[in-house]
């Protein structure tokens, strides 16, 4: 009997040598005449163990990691093909606490098998949601999604069912479903993992969305920084089409829907939905004024659903298991689960899908195992480059949209980046402004010019030149950007800056707590994404 051995082909695993490990396993197996069936799965998301090799045994899958090519002969000698123990062994994968403690709904299948294997997908519950959706009238289907409490996972947290309902009601000959796979936020990789590890799940979600709103065409806008995801999606779409899940007549229902994956060209702003539409139409990614909402007049002027990868990939499980099942996870108005992504200076970086309501303390220490350097974690940025920097005193705030909003922070796409005590927060604040200046679409002055001025003012503050005057200037610049920007790039870049200043004034050379106190009591106008 040939042993089944799993070596991920996820780009994160490949980035730390999975390909060399896979080759070493095949070579060693051949030399020892021990037959091996190599499966190139997605990643289970335990990145600190990548390349993580798994072996199928009667008891379940046994994990070894992080494996280097040099370790392979030793693993064979120890009998890893039969699941025997080894210094790199972690026992049954499913029992590793990092994984066992998770609530994987959206990521239930990711890492289990070969991403492009359609038969495996069906065997593991794939297309159950779609089949149910195809039997439901669109109204009921939209209600199911609304009732699940699913809110947009791309950052703004807008209820998905409500958006679908608007598009569903719009009357037009052509409607579109656009998947926002730009995933530009640093510290995030859940979209990439899912696209690489379970692409049919996204496709299934998009077909369900199309069915719900009556759309015939769909696009996945994928960033050019993700060459692997692009290649996998292109193959998955082709295979799904050949199997009748896409095309003029989906599974014999008479419903038509087809899909194309498009490549971005390295512009963070193209993750903003209207900029993305401009880009898809072939223009510079300048943000559009709203209204009209894309739901009414979107791609090529037609009603368009735009959803993040995570939002769409959560739909199949909602349909398969029912809205109540999904809604029962989470707290308050943050229902269901979020795949959090642990990154930066963290010992156990990876993906942790959990119901809303847990805290940074749990993520950073119970899952993350503290910092990678072993030094104290001093600051954490949550929600990407426009998210606030949080100090330890905020690590116990429950991760739910409203609770985060109350502390002027945002959960965004669930990216969590930890910094140890060597971080210079003035530098991070400067970087936030610099990033905004580099990526600004240039449509409005507060963002285009303001971010440039922001860099200069922070430089002056750090250099101690007219510090108090420049602090007042920075504060007023932030106000202008928050209030005067068309979109959240200019409108939220002040959040990391202000939070850094508020919680870490010493890094800016400020020795009184005056500024910090004033900031703390100030209310920040509501954000728009």
């Amino acid at each position: 009997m040939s042993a089944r051995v799993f070596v991920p082909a996820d780009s994160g695993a490949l980035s730390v040598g999975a390909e060399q490990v896979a080759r070493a396993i095949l070579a060693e197996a051949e030399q020892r005449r021990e037959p091996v069936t190599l499966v190139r799965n997605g990643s289970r998301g335990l990145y600190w163990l990548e390349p993580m090799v798994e072996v199928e045994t009667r008891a379940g899958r046994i994990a070894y990691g992080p494996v280097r090519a040099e370790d392979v002969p030793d693993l064979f000698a120890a009998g890893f093909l039969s699941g025997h123990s080894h210094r790199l062994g972690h026992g049954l994968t499913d029992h590793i606490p990092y994984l066992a403690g998770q609530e994987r709904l959206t990521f239930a299948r990711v890492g289990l098998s070969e991403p492009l294997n359609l038969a495996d997908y069906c065997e593991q519950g794939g297309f159950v949601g779609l089949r149910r959706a195809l039997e439901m009238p669109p109204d009921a289907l939209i209600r199911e999604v609304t009732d699940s409490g699913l809110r947009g996972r791309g950052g703004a947290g807008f209820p998905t069912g409500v958006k679908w309902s608007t598009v569903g009601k719009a009357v037009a000959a052509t409607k579109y479903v656009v998947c926002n796979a730009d995933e530009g936020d640093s510290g995030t990789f859940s979209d990439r993992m899912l696209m690489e590890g379970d692409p049919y799940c996204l496709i299934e979600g998009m077909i369900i969305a199309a069915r719900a709103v009556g759309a015939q065409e769909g696009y996945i806008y994928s960033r050019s920084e993700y060459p692997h995801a692009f290649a996998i999606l292109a193959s998955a779409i082709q295979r799904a089409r050949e199997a009748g899940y896409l095309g003029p007549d989906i599974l014999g229902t008479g419903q038509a829907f087809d899909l194309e994956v498009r490549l971005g060209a390295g512009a963070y702003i193209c993750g903003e939905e209207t900029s993305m539409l401009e880009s898809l139409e072939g223009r510079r990614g300048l943000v559009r004024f709203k209204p009209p909402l894309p739901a009414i007049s979107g791609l090529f002027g037609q009603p368009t659903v735009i959803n993040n990868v995570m939002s769409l990939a959560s739909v199949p499980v909602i349909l398969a298991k029912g809205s109540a099942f999904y809604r029962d996870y989470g707290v308050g108005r943050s229902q269901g689960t979020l795949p959090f992504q642990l990154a930066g200076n963290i010992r156990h970086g990876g993906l942790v899908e959990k119901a809303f309501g847990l805290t940074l303390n749990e993520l950073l220490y119970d899952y993350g195992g503290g910092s990678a350097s072993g030094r104290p974690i001093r600051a954490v940025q949550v929600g990407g480059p426009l998210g606030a920097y949080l100090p330890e005193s905020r690590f116990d705030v429950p991760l739910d949209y409203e609770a985060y909003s109350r502390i002027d922070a945002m959960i965004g796409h669930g990216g969590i980046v930890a910094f140890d005590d060597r971080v210079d927060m003035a530098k991070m604040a400067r970087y936030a402004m610099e990033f905004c200046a580099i990526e600004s679409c240039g449509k409005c002055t507060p963002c285009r010019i303001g971010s440039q001025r922001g860099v200069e003012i922070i430089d002056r503050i750090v250099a101690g030149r007219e510090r108090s005057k420049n602090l007042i200037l920075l504060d007023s610049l932030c106000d202008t950007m928050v209030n005067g920007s068309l979109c959240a790039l200019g409108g939220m870049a002040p959040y990391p800056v202000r939070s850094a200043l508020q919680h870490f004034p010493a890094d800016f050379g400020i020795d009184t707590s005056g500024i910090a106190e004033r900031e703390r009591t100030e209310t920040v106008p509501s954000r728009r994404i």
Partner: protein
Amino acid sequence: MPHASAPPDDPTPFNTDAVREVIRAAASVPGAMLPVLHAVQGHLGHIPSEVVPLVAQALNVSRAEVQGVLDFYHDFRRAPPGRHLVWICRAESCQAMGAEAIETHARNHLGLAYHETTADGALTLEPVYCLGNCACSPAVRVDGEIHGRMDPIRFEKLVEELRAETVTA
């Protein structure tokens, strides 16, 4: 499969008919501007100014429109890059794990600033803002492949391999 922004294995010298054919093949989809420009860059390694009128004509838009798009997106290059493209991730997670040391190393040992090419034409250095490999920070990308848990020593080794390759080529 077009690897976004990676230079082609064998950059073809400019040939108007061949470029027209590349444009034509990519131009059939709605909103074809980005697919067309990616295809041209995949073919030539960069987008020379002679291509602008060809694209404008094929897509029935003004040259200024094409130029505007080229200038807007970071991916599109106006000049030929080195034989390999090396991107260093500058975003927060990689910063938290020492990306700056890699940048400094590139500056001191390669004598390269961003957007510059080594004198031997082996590689062009570019910044990138997240490669989605943040759990294995710091990350760099070489052509279509991503490398994680990078450090200055490994970076130097990687770069030396790329440069050695071009010497024998």
